């Protein structure tokens, strides 16, 4: 069966209530087109996890698609905070399980390796630890090191239903290249039941086979491959296109109140039928070509 899929079909494979690991980091390689389609299809009650909260999670939370977030804190860098996530935490509509970047990574890594728990040095003595114990007693515990007798906090594996990962290139089987830093994406994929790859470019099997050392996601983990240029817009994809500062600024402004955010969704999510109409709405090819990355700088 072919894994090549439309965005709409790949999104439709996700049941409400699923746990998704998203590949975004602040304002880079965020699964934005995917998130917009999830919102259009009305999929809800999601759990979202990622090591650093990013714009893809924030738009889903703002649209009311997320019940629970497992993350290590985050922001939209200098553009602003994750206003929708923060508002959800403050008004109690979002259950947030908040860690540090490494502790979420270690939870994915434990899941990826199939081990029962992962010891960590971080979190000790902090209120992140006390808050986690209060809110999710079963995901963090203490253990005595059987070799030294030392006490260690241990984390439960994180096993998402689906990892959704933006990549620069993938073949029809889902063998994928990520150019640039990969933050938690490798462990997210391996910890998850299956992975949806959203690729800027579909490449031939031969392209992958000529440079297999670049393959960071083996196809065996992948259920769907969606080819969709500019699908991380307005966030950046290293060596492909830069972030769109104007559009991120507009997003941050819109997220200041639920009303202005609703207007943003009407304009950029519900007001367009698909990703191609979205790209027209934000300025089309003339605008997008101005974001293309310089081959030396990578942005």
């Amino acid at each position, binding site marked *: 069966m072919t894994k090549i899929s439309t965005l709409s079909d790949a999104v439709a494979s996700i049941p409400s209530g699923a746990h998704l690991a998203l590949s975004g980091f602040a304002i880079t390689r965020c699964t934005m087109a995917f998130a917009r389609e999830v919102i259009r299809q009305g999929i809800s009650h999601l759990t979202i996890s990622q090591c650093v909260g990013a714009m893809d999670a924030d738009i889903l939370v703002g649209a009311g698609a997320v019940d629970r977030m497992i993350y290590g804190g985050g922001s939209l860098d200098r553009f602003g*905070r994750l206003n929708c996530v923060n508002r959800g935490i403050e008004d109690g509509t979002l259950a947030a399980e908040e860690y540090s*970047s*490494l502790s979420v*990574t270690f939870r994915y890594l434990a899941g990826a390796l199939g081990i029962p728990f992962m010891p960590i040095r*971080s979190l000790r003595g*902090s209120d992140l630890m006390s808050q986690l114990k209060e809110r999710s007693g079963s995901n963090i515990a203490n253990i005595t090191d059987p070799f030294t007798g030392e006490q260690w906090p241990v984390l439960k594996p994180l096993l998402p239903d689906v990892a959704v990962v933006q990549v620069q290139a993938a073949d029809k089987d889902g063998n994928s290249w990520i150019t640039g830093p990969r*933050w938690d994406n490798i462990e997210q994929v391996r910890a998850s039941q299956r992975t949806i790859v959203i690729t800027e470019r579909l490449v031939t099997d031969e392209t992958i086979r000529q440079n297999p050392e670049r393959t960071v996601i083996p196809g065996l983990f992948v259920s769907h491959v969606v080819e969709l240029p500019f699908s991380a817009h307005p966030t950046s994809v290293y060596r492909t296109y830069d*972030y769109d500062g104007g559009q991120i600024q507009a997003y941050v402004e819109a997220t200041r109140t639920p009303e202005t955010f609703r207007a943003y969704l009407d304009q950029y999510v519900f007001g367009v039928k698909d990703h191609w109409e979205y790209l027209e709405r934000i300025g089309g090819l003339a605008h997008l070509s101005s974001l293309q990355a310089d081959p030396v700088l990578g942005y």
Partner: protein
Amino acid sequence: MDFDYTSSELMAVAGARELQDNEVVAVGLGLPVVASFLAKQTHAPNMTILFELGVIDPQPVDCGVGLADPRVWYRANVLSSFVDILGEVLHRGRVDVGFLGGLEVDQYGNLNTSLVGDPKGKFRHMIGSGGANDIASCAKRTIIIMRHEERKLKETISFITSPGFISGGDSRAKAGLTGGPSRVITDKAIFGFHPETKQMRLLSIHPGITREEVLSTMGFVPDVPEQVPFTKPPTREQVRLIREVIDPQRMYMG
């Protein structure tokens, strides 16, 4: 003194002076970036700079808006992952210095970047940890750099995101952590920590600032030795490097 410098420039220079050649430094964005690149371009050419998301030793030519901006990854030696940097370098124990900013710090060097009270008495959720808790827990020492204001330097903070000396004394060791904060650099002074009580201790006051100005604008009384020297001012070359090479667009220095 025949040239001007700003308080941010002095902070960045003071931060740079804390870094030694051949050290491995985990850096958060903002002033820590300027301080680290300044050290690297002056007295610490063999220092290794790490960004948590998987970047080792970048040489940016443009300023970035954050760690997620490819501008700050430019000409890196390595582009890898959290497991690589926060795990196999930091958690492994190979990071000498963690360089952190914060919204609030208390007298024991604990940092809050999670919850801040607003004037109506409600808590606002801010940015949380990112890699800051990991760096504060695992680096051999941490340097904290932040503005000197009463609402930022507090006797107690509402949330410990990243541990310093926790409740002072040996409480950090009892929690199973080594290392800890070595310096707090503000725009008025530089602090260290008392070797026993682990309370913040005034080490130097920036030129042009009085002891009274330092102490009246913080929410707790630090340990103050009899003699407190002035902080060494930046050199002309350090200020030139910051303005012309490291932060020409003044994105980090404001």
